[in-house]
C-alpha cells in the first residue's frame, strides 16, 4: 500500500454506491486522478467542506497497488476561492479553466505548470479580476503548455523573421502565424496588431507581468481574445460544456 499527499483542486464529485463519493481531482505532482472517498456522503470530519468542486485542498490518499484505484483518506481545505461562487460569470470561467485543462492534460499526463496555472487562475477569478483578461491569460498559457503555442517568431509561409513592426495574420486552421505579404486577413485568418502579437507572445509564455507594460488597447485585447477562442475551438475540436456560458 502506498500513501500520498498532494495539493489538489477538486474537479468533479459524484455519488458512488450507498455512502461513497467518486471524486476527480487535479494534483500538482500526479496530474488528474480519480479516487473513492469511502463514507464521503455520510459525514465526515475527514472531508468536511473539502470535496467541493473548484476548491484547493491538501489531499491524503492511498493506492493498494500500482495501477489500482485510489482511495481518499482525508483532506484539508486550503482555499475555497469564495469569489467564484459570487456570480455565474465567475463560476463559468472557473469551470471552463478546469474543463480545458482536463482535455489538455487528461489522466496520465502530468505537468505541474498546468496545476499552478489552474490555481493562479482560480485565485484571480476569486479576487474579482477582469474576467476578459483572466480568460486571455489562461487560454494563451494553457494552450502553450498543452503543446499548441502559435509560433510568432516567423512567418510560417515565407519563413521571414517577425520583427514586431507590422500587422500579422493567424491562419486558424493551421494554428500558424503569417506576415501580411503572404496572407490577407479574412474571417478565418484574423488580423493582429503588433501590440496584440506581443501580448499574445507574453500570455503564451506565461509572462503575465510583461503584459502590464505592453499597454494593450481594448482593441488589442479583443483581437487576442478572438484568436485564442478560435485557436481552442480548432485545436480541441470539441465544444466545451462551460464555453457557452462565457461572455
Amino acid at each position, binding site marked *: 500500500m502506498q500513501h500520498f499527499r498532494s495539493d489538489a483542486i477538486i*474537479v*468533479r464529485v459524484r*455519488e*458512488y*454506491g*450507498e455512502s*461513497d463519493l467518486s471524486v476527480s481531482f487535479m494534483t500538482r505532482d500526479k496530474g488528474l486522478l480519480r479516487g473513492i472517498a469511502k463514507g464521503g456522503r455520510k459525514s465526515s*470530519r475527514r472531508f*468536511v*467542506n473539502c470535496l*467541493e*468542486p*473548484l*476548491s484547493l485542498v491538501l489531499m491524503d490518499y492511498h493506492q493498494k497497488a500500482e495501477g489500482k484505484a485510489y482511495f481518499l483518506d482525508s483532506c484539508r*481545505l486550503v482555499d*475555497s476561492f469564495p469569489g*467564484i*461562487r*459570487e*456570480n*455565474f460569470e*465567475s*463560476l*463559468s470561467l472557473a*469551470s*471552463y479553466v*478546469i*474543463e480545458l485543462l482536463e482535455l489538455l492534460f487528461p489522466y496520465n499526463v502530468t505537468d505541474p505548470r498546468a496545476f499552478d496555472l489552474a490555481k493562479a487562475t482560480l485565485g484571480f477569478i476569486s479576487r474579482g479580476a477582469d474576467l476578459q483578461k483572466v480568460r486571455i491569460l489562461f487560454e494563451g498559457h494553457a494552450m502553450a503548455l498543452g503543446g499548441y503555442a502559435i509560433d510568432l517568431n516567423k512567418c510560417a509561409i515565407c519563413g521571414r523573421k517577425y520583427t514586431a513592426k507590422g500587422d500579422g495574420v493567424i491562419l486558424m486552421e493551421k494554428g500558424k502565424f503569417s506576415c501580411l505579404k503572404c496572407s490577407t486577413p479574412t474571417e478565418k485568418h484574423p488580423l493582429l496588431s503588433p501590440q496584440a502579437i506581443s501580448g499574445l507572445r507574453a500570455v503564451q509564455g506565461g509572462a503575465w507581468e510583461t503584459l502590464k507594460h505592453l499597454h494593450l488597447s481594448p482593441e488589442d485585447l479583443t483581437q487576442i481574445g478572438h484568436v485564442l477562442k478560435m485557436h481552442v475551438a480548432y485545436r480541441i475540436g470539441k465544444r466545451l*460544456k*462551460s464555453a*457557452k*456560458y462565457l461572455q
Partner: protein
Amino acid sequence: MGIYPAPLEVLVDRLASLPGLGPKSAMRIALHILRSNEANVKELVKALLEVKKKIKFCSVCFNITDTDPCNICEDPGRAGHIVCVVESPGDQLAIEEAGAFRGKYHVLHGALSPLDGIGPEDLKIGELMVRIGKDRIEEVILATNPTTQGEATASFIARLLAEKYPQLHVYRIALGVPMGADLKYMDRLTLEHAFKSKTPLKT
C-alpha cells in the same frame, strides 16, 4: 457472459443504476424480488408505472404532485406572499418535514453547473421571475444548498431579482454552526460563514 442468469443480471444492472444503490444492495434487492410471490412483484411493478403516469410537476411551484396545482400551492393557510426557493423536491420535503416554514415553495430542479453544461435555462428560474410578479410575492428565501453550485445559483437569482424587483425582500438561509455542535471541531469555512451571518440577540 456474467456468472448469474441473464434476466437476474439485467435486473441487478437496472437497480444498481438507481441513486444510492451499489451493486451489493442491488443484488440484495434483486434476490428479494426473486424470492417474493408473484402478487407482490406485480404490485411493485404497478406502483412504478403509476408513479410515472400520475405524478407530475405542479405548474406553479414545480414540485412533484398528483394534483395541479399541488396541495401546498392551494393551501389558504400558508403565507402566499413568501416563497422559499429550493433545488430539488427532496429539499422541499426536508423543510416541510421539519415544519420550519409556512409559506410557499419554488423548486428549481437543479443548480447552476457550467462544468456539467447546466445553465439558467435548464432550471425553473425564468418561471420564478414570472411568478414573483404574477403572484405578488413580497419575500423570497433562497434555500439552495451551501455547495459551489448552490451558492452560485443563489447569487445568480439574487442578482436577477434585485434588477427586476427592487422592492422585493430577498434572503439567503443562514449558513454556519449546526445545533448541538462543538466549536472546537468546526472547520474554517463553517466558522467564517457563522461570523458573516451573525444575528443580533433580542433581549
